[in-house]
Structure formats: structure tokens, C-alpha cells
């Protein structure tokens, strides 16, 4: 009865929880369980990638050339930096430093925006070159010849297009599916962060109550984690 009375006036404690710690731990576990479902979702897509690459490695070796490694690496760095600002935002919330908190949240959203813009540039290049998914894979001839492997270019006469393995379209289906779904998750993360930012500006968070910042942070770190695996698998094939 003592602890119930002690916390009776805590405005952040929902009535169905006995203590603030129990409430916080429940929220965190709940978010982890949701992240598990996300891991399984992307796990299935990684399985698709693994099986298809295992059976048709020549398609992956051929097609990955069309992806811009520099932009991919840049996006990786951007997301890592946004994870830093996100972790710092949680720290700031716990310390009750509202201005630092809102600054870090804004920086995290900005990181997500830069990521999506770079993605947009990449997608636009693919669109221009006709390198799309499934039946929309209609590559512009100049692009195929421009990105021919050096050995192929040495063989006189034969254009690189003749070396194109069957079903390269499926690489691009996988590429757009995985990066598209990931991009969607980044967008949702940015929306969540914007919501938290509005609440932070109102001064809702402090050492006694910072759970929403913490839990959205977990989601954002997962989005970063998924990209950490996507980057080498799609962009760094040799």
C-alpha cells in the first residue's frame, strides 16, 4: 500500500501500473516486441535475397554495377549520425534539457530527410535509365554499355548488352522492394519523431517521464540497423 500511495499523485503513471518503473519497462518491452516483428518482416526479405542470390549469383554480380556505392555509403553515414542524435535526444530528455532535446530530435528528422532525398536521387537515376522492377525493366542501351565490365569491353565488337544474364529484372525487383520498404519505415519514423518533437517543445519530457522519446528512439535505431545490413548486401557485391 505504501508504494501505491507514494505514486498516487504521479501524473504520468497510468492507473493500471503499480509503479513508474513497471510502466516504463512494460513500454520498452512492448516496443522491443514490435521491433521483433519488424526484424522478422525484413528477415523474410533477406531470405528472398539469399535464396535468389544463391541460385543466380551472375545476376547480382552483373546488376549491382548500376548502383551508386558512394551514395549508398553516404546514406549509411547519414543514418549512423541520425542514430547518434537520436541517442543524444534520449539522453537530453532524461536530463530534462528541453532545448537540447528538441535540437537533437530536429537533427534526427533532418538526417532522415537527407537519407530520403539521396534515395530519391538514386531512384530518379534508375527511372531515367529504365532500370526498374519486373516488366518495367527496360534498360537504356547506353547505360548497359557504359557500365560494362572492363573484360567485356576488351572483347572487340560484342556490346555489353549481349552479356546480360536472363532475368536481371528480378535484381531490381528485390532492390526496389527492400529499399522501398525500408524508405517507408524511415518516413514513418520521421512522422513519429515529428510528433515527439511537438510534445518535447511543449515541455512534456523530463527525468520523470521520457518513455515516448526512448521508445521512438528504439524504432529509429532499428531502421538504422536494417540499412546497415542492406548496404553491403545490395551495393557491395563483387
Amino acid at each position, binding site marked *: *500500500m*505504501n*508504494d501505491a500511495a*507514494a*505514486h498516487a499523485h504521479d501524473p504520468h503513471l497510468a492507473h493500471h501500473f503499480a*509503479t*513508474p*518503473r*513497471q510502466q*516504463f*519497462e512494460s513500454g*520498452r*518491452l512492448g516496443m*522491443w*516486441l514490435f*521491433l*521483433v516483428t519488424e*526484424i*522478422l518482416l525484413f*528477415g*523474410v526479405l*533477406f*531470405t528472398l535475397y*539469399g*535464396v535468389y542470390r*544463391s*541460385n543466380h549469383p551472375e545476376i547480382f554480380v552483373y546488376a549491382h554495377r548500376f548502383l551508386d*556505392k558512394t551514395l549508398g*555509403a553516404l546514406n*549509411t*553515414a547519414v543514418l*549512423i*549520425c541520425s*542514430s*547518434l542524435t*537520436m*541517442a*543524444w535526444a*534520449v*539522453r537530453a530528455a*532524461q*536530463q530534462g534539457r528541453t532545448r537540447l532535446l528538441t535540437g537533437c530530435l530536429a537533427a534526427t528528422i533532418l538526417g532522415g530527410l537527407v537519407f530520403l532525398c539521396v534515395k530519391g536521387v538514386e531512384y530518379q537515376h534508375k527511372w531515367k535509365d529504365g532500370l526498374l522492377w519486373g516488366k518495367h525493366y527496360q534498360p537504356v542501351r547506353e547505360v548497359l554499355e557504359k557500365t560494362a565490365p572492363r573484360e567485356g569491353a576488351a572483347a572487340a565488337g560484342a556490346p555489353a548488352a549481349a552479356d546480360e544474364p536472363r532475368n536481371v529484372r528480378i535484381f531490381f525487383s528485390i532492390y526496389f522492394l527492400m529499399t522501398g520498404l525500408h524508405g517507408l519505415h524511415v518516413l514513418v519514423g520521421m512522422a513519429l519523431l515529428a510528433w515527439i518533437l511537438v510534445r518535447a517543445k511543449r515541455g512534456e519530457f523530463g*527525468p*520523470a517521464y*521520457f518513455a515516448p522519446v*526512448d521508445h521512438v*528512439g*528504439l524504432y529509429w*535505431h532499428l531502421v*538504422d*540497423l536494417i540499412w*546497415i*545490413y542492406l*548496404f*553491403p*548486401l545490395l551495393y*557491395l*557485391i*563483387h
Partner: protein
Amino acid sequence: MESEAGHDRQALAHPVPAWLLLAVWGALMLLTVATVAVTHLPTGDLPALGLWLAMGIATVKAVLVALFFMHLWWDKPFHAIVLIGALLCVMLLVGLALMDTRDYQGDIREHQQRIGP
């Protein structure tokens, strides 16, 4: 009852030290450079080595993010068990699917040779 209340009055907030956040960030950036560098290494007889090395580095990065950015280092072990459980399930899924599909490659090749180009 008294000790329970005492435990709960222990501060909820546990700010991660700033130096640790920066150190983890620095390590992540370095490992990203390493990931790109590793795929340029000549692998000779083992073409898949580059991929496995890159995956290994990615896993180190993932562990750093999970332990320190996602606070698992200080959390109840149950949260880490939940995450590891999910990862084991994914590894089973990928592993078994790959084993299964590899099993059939011989049959598929035979069939393709039989029906011709």
C-alpha cells in the same frame, strides 16, 4: 513492500555518458569505411569471403547499436533475449531456405541440360 518502493524510487532516468555515445558513433563510422574497404580486398579462391567479412562487420556495428544506442547493455537481460531470439529465428529461416534450395540445384541443372538451351 518497503524494499519494493525503495527500488522503484531509484531513478528511472539513466543518461548514457556523452563520451560513450561519441565513441560508439566513431566506431560505427570507422566500421562503415572498413565495410567498403573489405569488399575491395582480393579474395582469390574464396569469392564469398568478401561478403562474409562485410556481414561480419555489419554484425559488429549492429551489436554496438543494440548494446549502447538501444541501451541493452544496462537493460534487463530479458530484452536482449527477445532480440537474440528474433535473430535466431531469422538465421534459421535464411539457413534452412538456403540449404533447401541448394539441395535442388543439381536436379535443376540436370533438367536444363536435358531440355537444352
